[in-house]
């Protein structure tokens, strides 16, 4: 299996292959936030709007039928990509946050009572914390937390106690701050044995490696199109058929009904009942193209590329800055994805990212929507450089150059 040829691949990404400005090309290291888009995606969406755009599910004419096929085709494509048992297990949402909220709110209201337990972890994104806190306030569910080890992995020492009597385990497959890859299959197996329903926040894992939701043994997962080369405005909730059947829809309106009378309504079958209103047809076409692009590359190669680049990044940053840089999370690239959060000397992340911007290096500075984790790291904010298929060692070298100059400006 040949490695990804980054120089060739970049030609597919207009922003990344654009002419340099002031002699500098764009070094995009913020893909954990949102990814860049290849021509294949941009063109597929444009072509669709130019050549075959029409309404979904509502009309008999051929244009409408073709649009419906395109939308359902995308659903099918997503199902195959994550090895779902059927396309009916794929719900299109606005984004992952929307999917996580749908499950947390709707499941809690339908199935949980005061005192029922939901287990989360200390490394969750706000999108998998706040919806549950809302349900804590509304229903009185109890939240339990899987703590972390010193090197930023889930501390599973007391997992059985935490899961004892739990109704739900909702946990991230990969931390968007630490890069830690969690043992999802083990977590799901143990949660299931304890009788808990399992939700996997797969936002950071699906774009970066092979996904098999059945092998995970999970009940549900959520992820966003925009982090995997696709457009914004579209997320995915996957749920096993029997779980989705037991999940009441949250938004009522057109498309999601079977029948409406003055004295009541009945719902359309799963998954349509969760997709009230006009769906994200163009975005679904874009996501379909993104998945085609990723699959052509091969998700195993994507993972290999990022693991090796992460190794290079950790080695290079450590060699260049020694104790002046603290990279959070596991140091072994086998245990982590390409998300590198770090503290650089005692420079504030905002200042670091401002100076990096001068080198056209895009990194995120902030709390990464994981404030509970930031408190554990005893940081208000970190700098986060995150990698994807279009990054190569050159990008890391520019990062090092830019960080050195940040040190110079602040007189270190």
């Amino acid at each position, binding site marked *: 299996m040949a490695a990804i040829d980054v120089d060739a691949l970049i030609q597919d990404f207009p922003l990344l292959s654009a002419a340099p400005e002031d002699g500098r090309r764009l070094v995009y290291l913020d893909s954990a936030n949102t990814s860049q888009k290849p021509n294949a995606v941009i063109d597929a969406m444009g072509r669709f709007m130019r050549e075959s755009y029409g309404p979904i599910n509502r009309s008999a004419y051929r244009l409408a039928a073709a649009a419906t096929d395109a939308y359902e085709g995308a659903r099918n494509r997503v199902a195959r990509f994550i090895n779902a048992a059927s396309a009916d297990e794929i719900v299109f949402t606005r984004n992952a946050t929307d999917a996580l909220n749908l499950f947390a709110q709707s499941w809690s209201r339908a199935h949980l009572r005061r005192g029922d337990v939901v287990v989360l972890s200390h490394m969750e994104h706000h999108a998998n914390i706040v919806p549950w806190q809302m349900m804590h306030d509304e229903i009185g569910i109890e939240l339990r937390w899987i703590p972390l080890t010193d090197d930023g992995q889930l501390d599973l020492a007391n997992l059985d106690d935490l899961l004892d009597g739990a109704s739900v385990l909702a946990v991230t497959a990969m931390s968007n701050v630490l890069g830690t890859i969690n043992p999802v299959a083990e977590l799901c197996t143990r949660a299931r044995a304890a009788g808990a329903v399992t939700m996997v926040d797969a936002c950071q894992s699906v774009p970066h490696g092979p996904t098999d939701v059945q092998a995970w043994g999970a009940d549900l997962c959520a992820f966003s199109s925009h982090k995997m080369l696709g457009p914004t405005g579209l997320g995915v909730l996957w749920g096993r058929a029997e779980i989705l059947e037991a999940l009441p829809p949250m938004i009522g309106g057109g498309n999601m009904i079977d029948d409406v009378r003055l004295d009541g309504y009945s719902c359309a079958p799963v998954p349509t009942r969760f997709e009230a209103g006009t769906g994200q047809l163009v975005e679904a076409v874009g996501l379909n193209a993104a998945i085609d692009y990723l699959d052509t590359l091969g998700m195993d190669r994507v993972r290999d590329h990022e693991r090796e680049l992460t190794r290079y990044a950790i080695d290079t940053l450590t060699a260049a800055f020694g104790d002046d840089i603290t990279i959070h999370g596991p140091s072994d690239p086998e245990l982590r994805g390409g998300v590198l959060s770090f503290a650089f000397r005692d420079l504030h992340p*905002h*200042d670091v990212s401002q100076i990096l911007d001068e080198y056209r290096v895009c990194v995120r*500075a*902030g*709390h990464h929507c994981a404030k509970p984790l930031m408190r554990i790291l005893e940081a*208000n904010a970190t700098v986060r450089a995150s990698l994807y298929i279009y990054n190569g060692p050159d990008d890391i070298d520019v990062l090092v150059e830019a960080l050195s100059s940040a040190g110079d*400006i602040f007189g270190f």
Partner: protein
Amino acid sequence: MPGLEDLYREIILDHYKNPRNRGQLEVPPAVRADGHNPLCGDEITVFVELDGDRVVRVAIDGQGCSISQSSASMMSQAMTGRTTDEARALLHRFKHMMSIADHDHSDEPAEDIPLGDLEALQGVVKFPVRIKCAVLAWNTLAQALDSAAS
């Protein structure tokens, strides 16, 4: 693209590395207000001690980036000794420099109060995302003055 030298001026770096009036004041007699920037998680606490109508002491606690910290440090110096009216006028003048309309004085032009070292923060305007950092301490001080007045 504006150069970084517009942002990271010598005086700013000096106030960042050697912040003036760091610490806490006893409440009361001082009043305190907490401010934070949800974007970056910066947190700042401003303590103001008044003698009648006059600001006699300002102290700054919390943490943040070079811009928010140096702005707070300079502000603490610039505010000490002013009457509350003068303090509010300076606040207005500073926000005006940061291109921020402030609701209390929407139509009034800012008085031409000399800004001294604070002029160094002018360059921040060219980096719009950093304006919030520069005004964090000022908005927090305004809250402290409001709570002292009420």
